[in-house]
């Protein structure tokens, strides 16, 4: 955990790739982020992040089959690797651990 570290945006993209499974390619992730989080992101930013995640070994990519859409261009489908899943899990747990340390009583007081 200590060696690799994910930025906020990287984590978001990685999570979306996990959600979309076989349909995880650049544009789909952009749309998914817009739908679920309500955040407008640029396609190029998502691409760059995906390639970086690939460099780090958290996703791997392969070319999908050709379709009639998108001018017959194939999609580059990204799949979350085991390392990627482990990374997401560690980050979630680390955050939960921290979350627990916040005194919860204050909420009741308001």
């Amino acid at each position, binding site marked *: 955990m200590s060696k690799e570290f994910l930025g906020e945006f990287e984590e978001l993209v990685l999570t979306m790739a996990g959600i979309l499974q076989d349909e995880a390619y650049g544009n789909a992730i952009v749309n998914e982020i817009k739908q679920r989080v309500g955040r407008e992101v640029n396609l190029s930013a998502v691409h760059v992040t995906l390639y970086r995640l690939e460099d780090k070994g958290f996703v791997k990519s392969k070319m999908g089959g050709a379709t009639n859409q998108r*001018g017959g261009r194939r999609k580059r489908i990204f799949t979350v690797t085991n390392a990627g899943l482990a990374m997401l899990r560690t980050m979630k747990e680390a955050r939960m651990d921290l979350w627990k340390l916040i005194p919860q009583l204050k909420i009741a007081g308001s």
Partner: protein
Amino acid sequence: MNEVSPPGWAIRFLQRVCPAHLWEGIEGDLLEQFQADVEELGVTRAKGRFIWNAFRFVRPGIILRNRISNTFISSIMVTNYFKVAARNIQKRKFYSFINAFGLSIGLAFCMLIVLYIQDEREFDQFHANKDRIYRIEEKSFDTWQHDSADPFRRSAWLQAGLAPVIKAEFPEVEYVTRYNDGNRVIFRYEDKVFTERVTYVDQDFFKMFTFPLLKGNADRLFQDKLEVVITPEIATKYFGDVDPIGKTIEIENEGKSLFTVTGVITPPPAQSSLSYAVLLPQENRNNYQRNLENWGNFGTPTFVQLRQNANLESFKSNLDHAIDKYMSDRLERWRKEAVVPISPDVKMLEYEYTALPEIHLNTAISWDKVSDPQYSIILGGIALLIILIACINYISLSLTTSTSRRIEVGIRKVVGAQQSQLVYQFTVESLILAVISMVFGLGLVVLFLPYFNEFTNKGIALTGSKIVQLLSVGLVLMIITGMLAGSYPSWFLSRFKPASVLKGGFTSRLQAGFTKPLVVLQFALSAFLIISSVMMYRQMQFITTKDLGYNQDQILVIPTQAGWSEESDRVVDQFRIRAQSEPLIVSVAGTSSSFNQGFSRYGFKINGEQKSAYVYAADPQYIPTLGIHLLEGRNFDENIPADSDAVIVNEALVRDMKWTDPLNQYYNWREDTVGMGSRVIGVVKDYHFLSLEEKYEPMFLSMDKHNVGYRTTLLVKVASADVTAGLDRVKALWQQLFPDKPFDYTFLDDDVAKQYSRYKRWMNIMGLSTGFAILISCLGLFGLAGINAVNRTKEIGIRKVMGADLQTIFFLLNKQFVILAILAFSLAAPLSWWFITQWYMKDFTFQVPLTWELFAISMITGLILALATVSYHAIKAALLNPADTLKYE
């Protein structure tokens, strides 16, 4: 459904920069987004977004993936490229050397020029408050010289009273100081008596400018009038190693006073427009009080430092206000007195200002070290020419040598090299050589810098950051040159079909045809520089040898050290009487100012006409000592009392007054309403009392002490047999007569020559550049001639077998170079003529005539140089035994 397509050029552009393996995924995503956008937003907006989205992909995260993959492919071959490059350099040691050497010389010169230009731009940048410091200037309507294009005169010399007014009345000004530099006064400490150059400033000087104090407190300096701040050099000169603070030193300037040293200040750096060695409070200037109240006397440069966030406009309006308040009456009077009526909307006087860092390159206002930014441009141009020549050499030599590697290229192609790989290989190869020459060039810069500094009168030092800068400039240049030199031959070579190359159908001749225009170009550039510098040299020669109309040799110029007073006259007469018995001293004269040591010019009205004339105080010995030619009338005579009011005029003044019979005229230069003015007793032939840049101006000599002034300078002519002995004698006499006065002297001819030091410097720089250019072009020519000779070895062999003699072969090989050189010359001659007449000569009123021999001489020199360079190869080739060259055929 698919009829709408996104802009194709954006796709093509992105495809170029995008890594190939990522391209399909990216393009697909972009297209998909585009189609969604079309449905949602309409075609026009969708297209706009497409372009925007496409360009967003131009980012390091994408582009950099490109290069890594590319280098990966080629890096397999890189070691091989290095190996082949090293072998090639070794195989052609001589050409490699010429190539690298030429380039490094060109580069070294360029780097020097870059240093020069940088130095010019860095002037005065070291002041911490430089953005808030301004020099105030006057812009006044010139009632003297009517120049309808620009009737205003601009100068940095202001009234002494302005600074106190600014300090007291301008809220936006934080500090203000006056600055008068250059006056020489006598210093005495124990037995040490010297004249020193002093600078009069105000106490704010130490707070405004970043001239750090080594000793003393900036807030407390110059609260007393009798304080002095000195540089360490002056401190050591008078006090040795003792701490100078608190010491008193006697300074004599119209009366002696004791000054206390209260501060030691670092000397000004070379890149400073302000200069000083000894700083004194302004209050010590002569006639300080009188000048303070006289708003018509412009003699004091003034600097201000504005407060942080001060408003420049309100500062300007305050300046206008000050003019109205203190000068309006005077300006009205000036307006009325003007000969030509001045329209009422013309402002007689206005204050302007220049920011401190801009002073150095502001030629509109004269200042001690001001320099024309044009020089930087011209030098930069020359540097570009030279680096161009060097690059042309490099490229043409690379081209000619690389054609011999046709077979290597053929083999490489057969084995499977792609064109891009060949380009890469040749580029790497020429880059290696280029980088070597860059390192070499930097070494040359270090070597040449001291001489360059001397030539250009600068103090450039190589610091670490400068070296890094130079290296980066050099690196960029080298990469460009290397690429050009490497890519063209590879493109050229890779066009051949390997089969035809390897089959041997090609002859083994190196193709030099396309290098001919390059040779002409570089030769024309050198010829241009040769002609220009020869012309500059001729003009300098003309100036230094021109008969000035007086005798400037063996004359010592000695200041009387007594200032503007009766005592000066006494010093002259005393010295003359004492010198009469000396055989080594020919004559002694006195004058108000020697040539190039300042002048007086008076303006006055005669019969309602505005006139002006230069005035020199003289005595009866003046004309004979200087050997001035008296055309009419007689010299001054001490025994005729009326002569004290008489004048001797020059021809230019006679012309100016349109006199036909000057000896019966009176020159009313004092605007005398009662009398008729000064009687003209003699007319001298025009002589150059001004520099040769000026034409002959009206001038007169006078012995009138009260109106013209005292003789503050001695002119001592010594016997020509032994000038050194004469000088020693004069010095000994001086010390006998005036033991408390320092003996300073200059030679008149040195003073006169100093007027042209700027031109001399330019001649030197041009000469240097010409030398560089010639050297580089000769190197290039040498290389090309060599290739040419090698190409024709067999041809020469056959010709020799057929009976051609050495002369014929020599002629055969050199013919084309002569033609090229002549062609180059005919291109360069009009260009250099234009350059010289338009830029260089226009400053001189007295010009050397430009004659055809000048061009002929330059051309013959160039031709001889070119022939000498190419002959080596021609003779070598012609002397070869044909049996050796032909036996393998």
